[in-house]
C-alpha cells in the first residue's frame, strides 16, 4: 500500500487521477513551497491512506517521519511531503464540495474521538476544519470576498481554534499543531509576536519541521500581515537558526518561496532579498543535499530574476533539456523561454 507508483493499488490510481483535478484549488491558501513536479513516495502513501480512510496507516507514517528522517536526501522536508499528501485529499475539487468537506470534518472528528491521545488525529481534524473554512472564503484577496463569506470563514476558523484549545495539551506534542495554529493565526490576524512565539515553540518541539519557517514567512508577505523589512528580518533569523543543518539554504528557499507566493518577478526590486546570500544558500544545499532537479530549476529562475547571467548560463547548461517547470514560478513556460533568450543575448 505504501509502495512506489509501479506497485500502486488500482483504487489509488483512480484516486490520483481524481485528486489531480484539485491540485490548484488552494494556491492562495498555502505557501507555494509544496509545489513539486512529482509526488514522492511519502506523499503518495499519505494520500492513499487518507483517501481510503486508513487512519492507522496515517498515524504510523506520521510517527515514522517524526521519529526518523525528517529531511529527504535532496534537502526537502519529508514531513512536508507527508502533509502534501493530506492536502491533496482535502483539496479534492468536486461538485458539492461543501458536503465532501463536511464528511471529512466528521470523519476526522471520529478519528480524534477514537484516538483521544493522538496529537496527529486532533491535528488532522483541525486541518480539515481549516480547509473547510477556506472553502467559504475562497482564494481571492480579502477585498474581493463578500462580507457573508468572510464571516463564515472567520466563524469556521474560530471553530477550528476552539477545537484546538480544547485539545491543546495533546495536540501541541506534535509540531503539526503549530503549523495549523499558524494558519489559524494568519486568518484571524494574530500579531507577528504571537506568530513568532508559536513558531518558536513548534521548532523547539521539532527543529526539523521546516514547514513552520514557510508558514511564518508566508504570513509576513505584504499581502498578508507583513512588510518587506519584517520578512527579511525573519528570513535572516530563520537562516541563522537552521544554519547548522542547511547553511544559508533556508535563506534561499524562503526567498524563492516569497517570490512564488508574493513578489513574483519583482523579488529583488520589492523585497530585501540579497542575491549573493541566496546564491550561497543554493550552493550550500547542493553541497549538502545534492540532486534536486526542482531546486536546480528554482536556482536558475532566481538567477534570472537577479540578472546574474553567468550563473544562469551555468545553470541552464546543467539543466539542459530536463527543465522542471515547477521551479519556474507561476507562468513557467514563458519564464523559462524569456530567461533563456535573455541569457543568450550578448
Amino acid at each position, binding site marked *: *500500500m505504501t*509502495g512506489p507508483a509501479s*506497485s500502486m*493499488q*488500482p*483504487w*489509488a490510481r*483512480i*484516486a490520483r487521477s*481524481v485528486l489531480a483535478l484539485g491540485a490548484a484549488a488552494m494556491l492562495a491558501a498555502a505557501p507555494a513551497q509544496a509545489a513539486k513536479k512529482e509526488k514522492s513516495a511519502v506523499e503518495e502513501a499519505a494520500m492513499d491512506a*487518507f*483517501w*481510503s*480512510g*486508513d487512519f*492507522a*496507516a496515517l498515524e504510523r507514517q506520521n510517527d515514522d517521519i517524526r521519529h526518523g528522517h525528517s529531511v529527504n536526501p535532496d534537502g526537502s522536508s519529508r514531513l512536508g511531503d507527508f502533509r502534501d499528501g493530506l492536502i491533496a*485529499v482535502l483539496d*479534492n475539487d*468536486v*461538485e*458539492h*464540495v461543501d*458536503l*465532501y468537506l*463536511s*464528511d*471529512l470534518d*466528521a*470523519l476526522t*472528528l*471520529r478519528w480524534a*474521538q477514537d484516538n483521544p491521545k493522538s496529537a496527529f488525529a486532533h491535528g488532522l481534524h483541525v486541518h480539515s476544519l481549516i480547509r473547510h473554512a477556506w472553502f467559504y472564503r475562497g482564494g481571492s484577496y480579502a477585498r474581493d470576498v463578500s462580507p457573508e463569506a468572510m464571516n463564515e470563514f472567520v466563524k469556521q476558523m474560530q471553530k477550528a481554534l476552539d477545537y484546538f484549545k480544547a485539545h491543546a495539551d495533546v495536540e501541541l506534542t506534535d509540531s503539526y499543531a503549530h503549523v495549523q495554529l499558524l494558519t489559524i493565526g494568519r486568518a484571524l490576524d494574530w500579531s507577528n509576536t504571537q506568530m513568532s512565539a508559536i513558531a518558536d515553540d513548534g521548532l523547539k518541539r521539532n527543529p526539523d519541521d521546516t514547514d513552520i519557517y514557510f508558514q511564518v514567512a508566508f504570513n509576513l508577505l505584504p499581502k498578508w500581515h507583513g512588510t518587506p523589512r519584517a520578512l527579511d528580518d525573519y528570513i535572516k533569523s530563520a537562516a541563522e537558526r537552521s544554519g547548522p543543518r542547511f547553511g544559508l539554504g533556508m535563506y534561499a528557499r524562503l526567498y524563492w518561496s516569497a517570490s512564488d507566493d508574493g513578489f513574483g518577478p519583482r523579488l529583488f526590486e520589492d523585497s530585501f532579498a540579497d542575491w549573493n546570500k541566496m546564491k550561497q544558500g543554493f550552493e550550500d544545499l547542493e553541497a549538502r543535499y545534492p540532486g534536486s532537479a526542482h531546486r536546480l530549476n528554482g536556482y536558475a529562475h532566481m538567477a534570472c530574476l537577479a540578472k546574474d547571467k553567468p550563473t544562469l548560463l551555468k545553470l541552464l547548461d546543467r539543466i539542459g533539456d530536463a527543465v522542471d517547470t515547477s521551479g519556474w514560478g507561476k507562468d513557467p513556460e514563458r519564464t523559462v523561454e524569456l530567461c533563456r533568450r535573455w541569457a543568450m543575448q550578448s
Partner: protein
Amino acid sequence: MTRRRSGFRRITAAGLLAAYLASAAAISAEPAPAPPSQEELAAMAKQIDTVLTRSFELPPALQLDPQLRMQAESLRDAHLERMRKLLPIWLHDELDRQTADKVRVRYSVFYAVWAQVLNELALWQVEPGDAAYEQATLAVLKTAPGACHPEGDTRYLDFASRVMRLQAMAPAQRQAALATERELLAHWGQPRVGLPEWPDPLPQEAGMAQVVRMRAEGPTPQMALSPVLASDLLAKRNDYRDLPWETKCLFQQWWLRASLAQGTAPAAALNAFRYGTMISAMDRLGAGFEQERTEAAAKAAAEAAAKGVPAYPRLASAFDVEGKTTVRRRLDAAGKPVQASVAKRDITVRGIRGVRPVAFESTFDALSMKYGLTAQVTAKPAADNTQLFQMVWMLDPTEPATQAVDKPKRGAQ
C-alpha cells in the same frame, strides 16, 4: 432439464471459452451434438482448472509476510491438486447424468461443471468459519482498510482477499485462521449445512439509503465516509453500482462498521459484507458474455426490450440458469415506483445439485430491479405503498431465450 435447445450456440464470450472452443473446433460439427469424448473431457478439465487457478493467485506485489505467503501457497497447492482429481470425476458424473436425462446440448457438460466450480468459489466466499475465525475476520474488516486493496484482476481476487485478511490478523490468530481456511476448502464438493441466506435488504441498498440521508442532512462522525466514498457518493452523487470494485469493497466495509454501530448483530453484519463483496458468476463473466451477443440475439433482445421485457442474460442462457425473483418495490404518492429490490431468489442451474447456486442467484437481480422501476403498476399496492411481485425466468426453446413475466400482483407473498 431435458429441453432441447437450438443446435449450436456461439459461446465465445469468456476467455476461457475462447480457449476451449479453439481446441474443440473439431467437434463442433452440426447438427447433432455427440457426447464428448474422453479426450474432450480431459481438455475441459484442463480449461476449468486453468481458470480456477486464476482465482487462487497471490500476486508477488501483495505485501505478505513470507511465512504467511508460504503457508497460503501450500494450502492453495493442496486444494488445487485435490480439485484436479475431482474435476474429471465431476465431468464424467455430469456426462452420465445428462446422458440419462437425454440432454443433448452442445457443451452442456462443460458448462455444468464450470457452473459447479463457479458456485464452489461463491459458496466459499459466503460460508462462515468457526467462532474464533469469525471474530478475527470481523475485527480485521472493522479496522483494516488494507483488506480491500488486493492487487490484480478484481474478478479473481477470491484467495488473495482472504489471505490479505489473514495478513491483517495478529500473528497468533493467523495459524488458527489458516486451519479454518483449510477446513473451508475441504467443504468444496460437499453439501453446505446452514448456509446463511442473502441479506434483505442488500448491504449496498441499506448503505445507499443512509448515503441519501447524508446527502440531505449532512454526515455525522459515526456514519462518516472515507474520502474516496465521500467524493464518489456525496460529492459526485455516483451510484453504488458504478463504483470500481475496490471502492465497492470499501463501501461494504464502511457499512459493516456503520451497521454494527447501529446495533446489527456481528454475524448478520459479516454475512452482509460477504454477500456484498461476493464475486458472482455475473461479476466474473457477465460482461464478456454480453459482448458476444450475436446479431440475431441482439435484434431479438431489442424487440423484447421494446415490449418492456428484459432480454435474457447471455450468461444465463449459456449456463442454463432459470428461476424466479421476487421483487419488492416502493411507490411514491403518485404511484410511481421509486425503489426496487430483490426480496427472494429461487434459481436453478444445470449441474448444481445439493447446494444453493449462490454464484448464480443474483444473475437476474439487476434486470429485476430495473423492471421493477419501469414496469407499469397494475395492482393496488399494500398499505405501506410497497408491492411484491414475482418474475419468472425461463429459457425458451429457441434462441434467443426470453423470459416470461407474470403480472404484478398485490404484495403479500
